[in-house]
């Protein structure tokens, strides 16, 4: 399989997987005590795209995922859609920077947690803008606490999935060590 074909295939799979996760997450009932808290499943795909193909391709994967996911979930152009978009753009931006600047210091788990936090903050920013009221930031501490376990979970999951890709799968300059310091040796599959 040629490099271009493989790249196209992988990115298409990431868009499809992200769309499925996006829709699935929308179907989950809201947690009673923690409304607005989400697992951030689709963030998994963003992380994979970043690790395998870098920022340029990731923006395509993320925007197509939000667009298709909202279309299938029936939320296109509603408030939910714009909140999704804000969260996706915010978290992608931060994770992109974390990948680039923090590569020596962070594992993919740290990047994932930063993404989860950025997701919540950018969603609340847009929400505060929409309703012209900062009271919504009351939720931030709850969301931050929730972002810790979910961010770790998604990051660890991403590290497992990345093991399935041969290093050559990525034509990107980060291909050298997309797995560096990601899972303990004991977890090797």
């Amino acid at each position, binding site marked *: 399989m040629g490099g271009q074909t493989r790249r196209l295939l992988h990115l298409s799979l990431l868009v499809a997987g992200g769309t499925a996760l996006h829709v699935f997450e929308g179907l989950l009932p*809201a947690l*009673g*005590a923690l*409304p*607005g808290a989400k697992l951030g499943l689709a963030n998994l795909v963003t992380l994979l795209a970043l690790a395998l193909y870098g920022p340029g391709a990731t923006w395509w994967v993320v925007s197509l995922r939000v667009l298709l996911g909202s279309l299938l979930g029936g939320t296109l152009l*509603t*408030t*939910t859609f714009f*909140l999704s978009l804000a969260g996706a753009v915010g978290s992608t931006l931060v994770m992109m920077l974390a990948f680039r600047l*923090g590569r020596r*210091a*962070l*594992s993919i*788990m*740290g990047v994932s*947690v*930063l993404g989860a*936090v950025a997701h919540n903050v950018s969603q609340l920013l847009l*929400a505060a803008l*929409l*309703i*012209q*009221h*900062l*009271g*919504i930031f*009351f939720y*931030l*501490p*709850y969301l*931050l*606490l929730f*972002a*810790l376990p979910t961010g*770790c979970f998604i990051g*660890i999951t991403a*590290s497992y999935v990345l093991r399935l890709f041969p290093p050559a799968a990525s034509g990107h300059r980060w291909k050298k060590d997309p797995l560096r*310091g*990601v*899972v*303990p*040796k004991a*977890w090797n599959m």
Partner: protein
Amino acid sequence: MAPVTRGDKLILVLVLVVALGAFGFLALRRQAAPSPAMAQVVVEVDGKEVERFPLANLRAGERHQVRGPLGYSVIEGGENKVRMVSSPCPDKVCVARGWISVPGEAIVCVPNHVVVHVEGGAQKQGYDALTQ
């Protein structure tokens, strides 16, 4: 070889500290809040005030309808407290918020653009205007 780097731990601790600090700050504010006698309930739609009344005047079980872009949100009074009982929004975050009673607390419904918040009579100005 640890999977979690020092940077990861730093991030985890930092987020935890910020979250717990915010909880502490909210709890302190709650304690420092003046008696509810002065508290006012303010209802806003799209950032514009549509209703304002003293919290103490709101009888338990009394309901008010607030019209937003999606339809009517309904607020209900309790013993010196107020909550959202029904809302046309899809996620019901506002309903799940429960009762609010202390100045500075707010119920926010993003889809229906409705904000209900409690204002302290005396301390309307200053930093409270920002943190509300």
